[in-house]
């Protein structure tokens, strides 16, 4: 059984932004994965990026540099 842990969840306005984030993280060797947006975050049924909390600053800087907008960042037990 996998233990739940606090993760950084980035929500996006569009699926395309989530896909772009996945590609950027892959290219930069940053850990994380696409997930269905947690229900506790929004009633939208979009796609979010889940990453270790320690990557928050790195991710935010990278996404800002590449013009990828987020709809919010959250700390969620996943």
């Amino acid at each position, binding site marked *: *059984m*996998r233990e739940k842990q606090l993760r950084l969840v980035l929500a996006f*306005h*569009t*699926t*395309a*932004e989530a*896909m*772009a984030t996945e590609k950027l993280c892959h290219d930069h060797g940053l850990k994380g994965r*696409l*997930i*269905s947006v947690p*229900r506790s975050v*929004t*009633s939208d*049924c*979009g*796609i979010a990026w889940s990453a270790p909390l320690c990557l928050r600053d790195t991710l935010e800087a990278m996404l800002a540099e590449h013009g990828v*907008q987020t709809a919010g960042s959250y700390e969620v037990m996943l």
Partner: protein
Amino acid sequence: MNKQNWLREHGLILLTGVVVGIAALALTALGNPKNMGFCIACFERDIAGALGFHSAAKVQYIRPEIIGIVLGAMVAALAAKEFKAKAGSSPACRFVVGLFVMIGALVFLGCPLRMVIRLGGGDLTAVAGLLGFLAGILVGVVFLKKGFSLGRAYPVPTGEGFMFPGVMAVLLVLLAVFPALLKFSEEGPGSMHAPLAVSLIAGLAVGVMAQRSRLCMAGGLRDVFLLRDFNLLLGFLAIWITVTIGNLILGNYNLSAVSQPIAHSQYLWSFLGMALAGWGSILLGGCPLRQLILAGEGSGDAAVTVLGMIVGAAVAHNFGLAGNADSVVDGVYKVGGTSPAGMAAVVFGFLVLLAVTVTHLPRKEAAQ
């Protein structure tokens, strides 16, 4: 994951599926057409007919289930402070894609929800639709991975978000107080319906539950293919299992590919019709049921999509594009299906979806 955690994580979507399944069984028992306890496409088509948008006399009735779903979703969203008026995500494209999703669904004779309900009644002709739906979703997922997007929605004044639920409320008033203004089928599927109050309550219950759980036929399969996340798919399966068990108990289960209620055995066009609906649903971000829920939550884009679907239903019946059910004429089994015009519309629909898709992919320089 232990049993308690699993239930906590998936209990709501499972319960929603069970509620939808029971509601479908109850509505059928109380008068709705067989294997059509719920069908978003058929019911929107009936509404289009009741308002005189098409003249197919057998499919005209203001379905309170649709009104209930939208109002139920609105109430649930307001109660949870999740009602957000927003719009601006390629509304014209959404209208057109919604129109073709409807044409695809009516060629098959049912939306994705009715497809599951038909399967739960033992209708093997719906398997072709299921395979087509899966294929359409896979095509959509390929383009999602390539960066397809209709663009983001923006906050708009709250009144915009209440407009579509308001239209639904007006339809309810017309049905309950001024029925003489509407058209009603005297025979055929449109004449078969559960009592207004029951239909409305069932719709409200489904609207509330689907808003809370985010139930979506297309989203469930998208999440499986794209994210290996099976949560939403559990709702899809719960409906199927509930309807199957219910029909077995009620003696309505008929495992067969012939003589199924309001269904045809022209498998290729069932497959292609639902492939069109599946691909379109992925482009729109949700199946026809989900569009109603989003419209209830204040999405002007979803409202435009539903209006596109209603117009699509009118187009389908005014131009003879919708499928015809198999029937028995003078003791001879007659295979129904769609007309050459319907086949052409499905092919044209694929071209339209391809054009919408290609024009909403990231430009090469932006993707790099």
